[in-house]
């Protein structure tokens, strides 16, 4: 063993000579050239917690969380693991404290916890979006419960792939969460990662890692964060719930089109019949035209057609686009009261 020890010492000694001989390189070996991320990570690690709760069946009983106030407010994801009486939070210094659930939000699948903690180290939530597409992000989470006790969170590097502006379109994302997303290219869709932090290379919180969800558009797991401006409103309790659409004084209209339904709800919306004298008849829509878009929404299936069809009103013009052969025909339709046959 002494031999190895000697060699070690010698190697270090030679290393030192090299470091002195080549000043630029010395900085690297001394750890001063770690790039732009180490400070951001150190900053964020002091603001991360591990959350433990009840295990229910195959649902994991753990998650990640971020400290968002100087008096022990902690953001994490909503889940059945918070339903038990024994919710605990492991603080950055390794101590474990009991937590109570202050608030939950179904749409965003977030939960706000309170623990007994006074700390200067917390994420100051921005009310404005943080980070643009292409910006570096560092994710911190306890995915797969790899870190235990005082051990710091697991860290991954990626960029912001897209700030998606699609909000709560029906059936677009078959998730519990519908709203703005920050899609990232670091893989975070793993058990236990939910509630983790996504931060910029300067340590600013971009958002919190959301629950594992599938995108119905791509049929893949999404790697995303719930954006910080929404977290802020959730913590401040200023989230307005989506107001129901005002439908007063508007009567659902009929387009005068029957689509071919035999193929089932997922088949394309071919026109099977056009009601004589209807608006569709007047603009010369024909059987076998394929409905491509209605009222600005793409119609991929009969199901999508039915969704949009319910939102046309008597006297309110909608644009329909149909495919006939190799051409697209774009015509206005004026929904009317249903014509009796």
């Amino acid at each position: 063993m002494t031999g190895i020890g000697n060699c070690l010492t010698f190697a270090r000694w030679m290393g030192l000579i090299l470091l002195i001989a080549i000043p630029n390189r010395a900085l690297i070996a001394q750890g001063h050239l770690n790039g732009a991320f180490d400070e951001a990570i150190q900053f964020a690690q002091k603001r991360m917690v591990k959350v433990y709760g009840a295990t229910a069946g195959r649902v994991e009983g753990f998650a990640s969380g971020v400290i968002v106030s100087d008096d022990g407010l902690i953001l994490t994801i909503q889940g059945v693991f918070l339903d038990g009486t024994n919710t605990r939070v492991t603080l950055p210094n390794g101590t474990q404290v009991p937590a109570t659930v202050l608030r939950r939000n179904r749409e965003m699948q977030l939960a706000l916890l309170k623990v007994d903690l006074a700390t200067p180290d917390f994420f100051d939530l921005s009310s404005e979006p943080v980070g643009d597409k292409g910006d570096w992000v560092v994710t911190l989470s306890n995915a797969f419960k790899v870190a235990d006790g005082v051990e710091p969170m697991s860290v991954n590097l990626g960029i912001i792939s897209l700030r998606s502006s699609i909000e709560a379109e029906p059936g677009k994302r078959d998730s519990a969460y519908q709203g703005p997303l920050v899609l990232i290219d670091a893989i975070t869709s793993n058990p236990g990662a939910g509630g983790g932090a996504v931060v910029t290379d300067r340590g600013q919180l971009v958002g919190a890692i959301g629950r594992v969800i599938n995108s119905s558009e791509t049929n893949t797991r999404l790697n995303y964060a719930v954006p910080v401006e929404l977290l802020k409103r959730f913590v401040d309790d200023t989230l307005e719930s989506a107001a129901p659409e005002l439908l007063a004084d508007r009567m659902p209209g009929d387009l005068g089109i029957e689509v071919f339904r035999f193929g089932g709800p997922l088949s394309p919306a071919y026109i099977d019949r056009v009601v004589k004298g209807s608006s569709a008849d007047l603009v010369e829509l024909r059987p076998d035209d394929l409905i491509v878009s209605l009222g600005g929404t793409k119609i991929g299936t009969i199901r999508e057609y039915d969704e949009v069809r319910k939102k046309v009103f008597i006297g309110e013009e909608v644009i329909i686009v149909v495919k006939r052969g190799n051409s697209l025909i774009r015509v206005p339709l004026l929904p009317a009261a249903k014509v009796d046959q």
Partner: protein
Amino acid sequence: MNVSDTRFDRIPQISRPAAMAVCFFLMTGVFADIARLQSQDRESDGLASPVDPEALKKGLRLTPRAFRAAAEKIQPCLVTIESFGGSSTLSGRIGGIRQRGEGNTTGVIISPDGLVVTSSFNFINQPNAITVITNDGERRVANVLGRDDSRRICLLRIEGVSGLPVPEMVPVPDVRVGQWAISVGVGYGDSSPAISMGIVSAVNRVGGKAIQTDANISPANYGGPLIDIEGKMLGVCVPMSGEGQELASGVEWYDSGIGFAIPLAGAETFIERMSKGIHIQRAFFGIQSENSDDAAGDGGIRITEIIAGSAASKSEFQKDDVLLKLDDQDLPNVAELRNVLAKYYAGDTVTILFRRGEEEKSVQVELGAPIQPEAEDTPSLFPGNQQESRTRMSQQHRWLTTLRKGSTSLRFSQTKRFLSRQHAFDPEMVKGRESFAGTAVRVLVHK
């Protein structure tokens, strides 16, 4: 810039002289390294000291701007592909993914008059109609011209366009392992594409046809471009794996750090073939074989079995023949035969030199396509009703989309109840609804 290869405090702990030698070696290496880095940096960004921590930090913080600029440069060349209909419930799962997803997909314009290359995966459910939205927001009809199953790509033509922008392509020999690679795709449904960054992990993968990358490749960007840091195109993102041959194999590796893109630089040959409507398939010879160990000692591959209906069976080959060369390429072992065959396509004619007993012979063989299992016989029509189970519905769906021309058929109209309109199947009736040849809708086979 990679600086992590200079961990001097981790010199292998062997012996004192060895360590000295290693140090000396490293030292010379390091000097050369520094000189190279410095000269590179002076050329590229004018930074005085290449390893100044602040400069490094600044450089890192500049890269997101480069990512964005690269994506913006390629964006006018992208199209959003919308597909309509097709079998939405394929039998079972495709590599862990139940189906393709409902969203739009990505394509890349490769000619000003509207040729678009995309991933065949995007049409795996054989849609009845395809439209594309170009960068100017216009929606147009597109038709599939041909596809290349060996590369998992297909060629579309946008009808009635001219003067479309095309991307700058990086020549394949210029692609370097380790260079930045950014995947771009509109599959998440936003008009602005999503990007994922990584590096080129390998070149000449999967029979020399693909570039490998660790950027996320998934249904969100299949058909979209993999670009370099300057926005030039490296290839088209596709699902692929070294193993499976099915169109969707490789999807199970989505977002895994192992992704593939098909370079299009110098691809005139296969693009032209696709544009003529040719369905390019990988070459299939049709033998089972083992490495020959006979006395001649010159390697070769011994045929142990010939698969019925294959190219090999249509030629004069017999069991125990030993294959020696294919078009002057030596066949030392079974693995090499696979590699050599990967360069050919179904329909190519090759010359094979083989040995039977003492005699060596040369024969010309037209390579075939992989033999498809016989299509299952479609069961007879069922009367649809409210209680139809989901499985039955999806079965029915499959019949609807796998019809071949010439069948006797019934057409249903729900508005006039079943069997109200009956006629012999007329291809004209479904004209314009066919995206893949032979696909039709709204027609059921009656037995």
